[in-house]
């Protein structure tokens, strides 16, 4: 608590079930103190209203226990990345793949690629987090806005479709699968 208030951190992980105190109170104090360090709230309370409470208290992300460690790392990565001066420009670029948010166009090596609206959202999310591990749950939450765990490999199938559109006919694959964890969009695997 003292450390969180005084130190300067890149990101703070706050557990809700702390001895004698809800981690959210710390987040509230931090925010009241005008401290904008990104906070990931960690909790076994996984219902939607718990999540909402966590985010309303000033948390930037909410992860429900039990979680895969890679999921935590990926989310922390996304949070620290967000902290850096955000690329406010409307153009995202990874290697020779470009995505223009204004006219919703995607080009690889100058050649236009046609994407479905949802595929566009998926790619935009991946590009915004390029070079970082992105988990299936993160994609579900941010691209489809579903907060449940599909029993089938829906996300994998969507990714493989997207991959076939952006990586086919190109020597350098950009969309990589990180085994057991998720995906990564980058020049090197």
């Amino acid at each position, binding site marked *: 608590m003292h450390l969180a208030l005084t130190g300067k951190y890149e990101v703070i992980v706050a557990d809700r079930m702390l001895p004698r105190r809800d981690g959210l109170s710390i987040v509230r104090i931090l925010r009241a103190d005008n401290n904008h360090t990104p906070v990931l709230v960690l909790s076994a309370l*996984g*219902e*939607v*209203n718990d999540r*909402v409470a966590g985010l309303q208290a000033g948390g930037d992300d909410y992860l429900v226990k*039990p979680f*895969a460690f890679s999921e935590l790392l990926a989310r922390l990565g996304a949070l620290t990345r967000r902290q850096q001066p955000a690329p406010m420009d409307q153009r995202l670029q990874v290697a020779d793949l470009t995505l223009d948010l204004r006219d919703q166009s995607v080009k690889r090596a100058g050649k236009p690629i046609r994407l479905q609206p*949802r595929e566009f959202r998926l790619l935009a999310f991946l590009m915004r987090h390029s070079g970082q591990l992105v988990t299936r749950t993160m994609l579900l939450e941010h691209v*489809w806005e*579903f*907060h*449940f*765990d*599909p*029993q*089938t*490999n*829906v996300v994998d*199938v*969507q990714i493989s*479709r997207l991959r076939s559109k952006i990586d086919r006919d190109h020597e350098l694959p950009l969309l990589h699968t990180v*085994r*057991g964890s998720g995906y990564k969009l980058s020049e090197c695997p």
Partner: protein
Amino acid sequence: MNALEPPPPRLWRTTAIRLAVGYVLAYALALVVALAAVSWTTAIYSDARARSQLQQELKLLTHGSKRTDTQAIKDAMLLRMHGASRKKRLYLLVSADGNKLVGNLLAWPTEEDIPVDGQVRTVEIELEVLPPKWFEDDSFIPVIATELPDGGRLLLGLGVAQAKLLQDITEYLSEGLLLAVLLSLAMGLTLGRAILQRINTISSAAARIMAGDLSRRVPVSPRNDEFDALAGRLNAMLGRIQQLIKGMREVTDNIAHDLRSPLTRLRSQLEITLLEPRTEEQYRRAIALGIEESESLIRTFNSLLEIAQAHAGQFSGNVQALDLCALAHDLVEFYGAVAEEAGLALAIEDCSCVNIEGSRDLIAQAIGNLLENAIKYTPAGGAVTVQVIQADNAVELRVNDNGPGIAEAERARVLERFVRLESARHTPGNGLGLSLVQAVARLHQAELTLRDGHPGLHVSLRFPRMRSAKAMS
């Protein structure tokens, strides 16, 4: 009985007694106030009456001051005096030298100096001069006195029995008050005892239930009064609690039963890996397998919790107006790729935009589970269609497939937790999908039905139409 148990209430501490006592006090206060008011107004009234009567009598005797001869007045007074004492009238005529000429007063009163000015005033007259059998304590009497031309004096008085009247009233009222006090106390006691008895039955039933007999209920009498209404409510509450506890127990049993085997599998896999030295590649594989196994465990665990929460009837999400059609579109699009991969045509057919009320997350998951089932069990080449149909007072979501369907006898069973049909043994899954759909449906007061599609399975979820701004709880 433990130390925390509150002692049974004493009769004199019951609300009924307190009410009775309070009522008596209020009644007494009102009586006292009324008494004061009555005596005050009586005094004013009788005073005024006496004043006018005395003046009238004087006028009569003196013939409006025209009769001044003492003898004539004496004669007139003798006539008027008949039955004077009985009528509470006092008469006295004395000569100039103070001798009584006529009257029922024995002598001119000396207790108080009475001015002979023809004005009415209330004076105290000593008992010795009052006629016999006069009211004993009524010695304050309105009188009028005047002097005649020859020096004689005339005194007229009118007893109004004021004090006596007041005393009588007070007596009656206090008797009434005493009666009221006794009656109220008796009523309070009876009422208190009756209510105490009713409450004691409820209280003792509660104590039994607390001691662990959850199936016990508060007895309901055939009187159908407010206590029975309360008992009925309490019983309904107890029923719900018992149902929830039963649900919890089921979940615990399920967890114990169905998570134990995968956990054992995970453990033995890891143990076997450790038994002899392996290559790094083998270790990696074992670890990856372990992660996979634990992930499926977590998934099952989460599903169970979600079902339990939905069953418990708590809305985990915010209830919101929800366009079922838009949500169905999103899900069909989401699962479209998977369906295509499985060689199925997944399409949304009819879709009318109607809002329902509910949690988007839960309903999305329920529809997702239905779609996953349809995709999983329909052989390649089949078709899965989704419809959102507006009925009279309901919105119906249908997921139809033309797969093998479910035999009629098994349709009810597949809704139970962990039930997987023999034909589904070879496919992945934990047997919780339809249980969750069922729980979500129940939470939204929706009706889940499975029908034969000739061929295939037709699943329908009938949601009640959105009611105007009414919470679902």
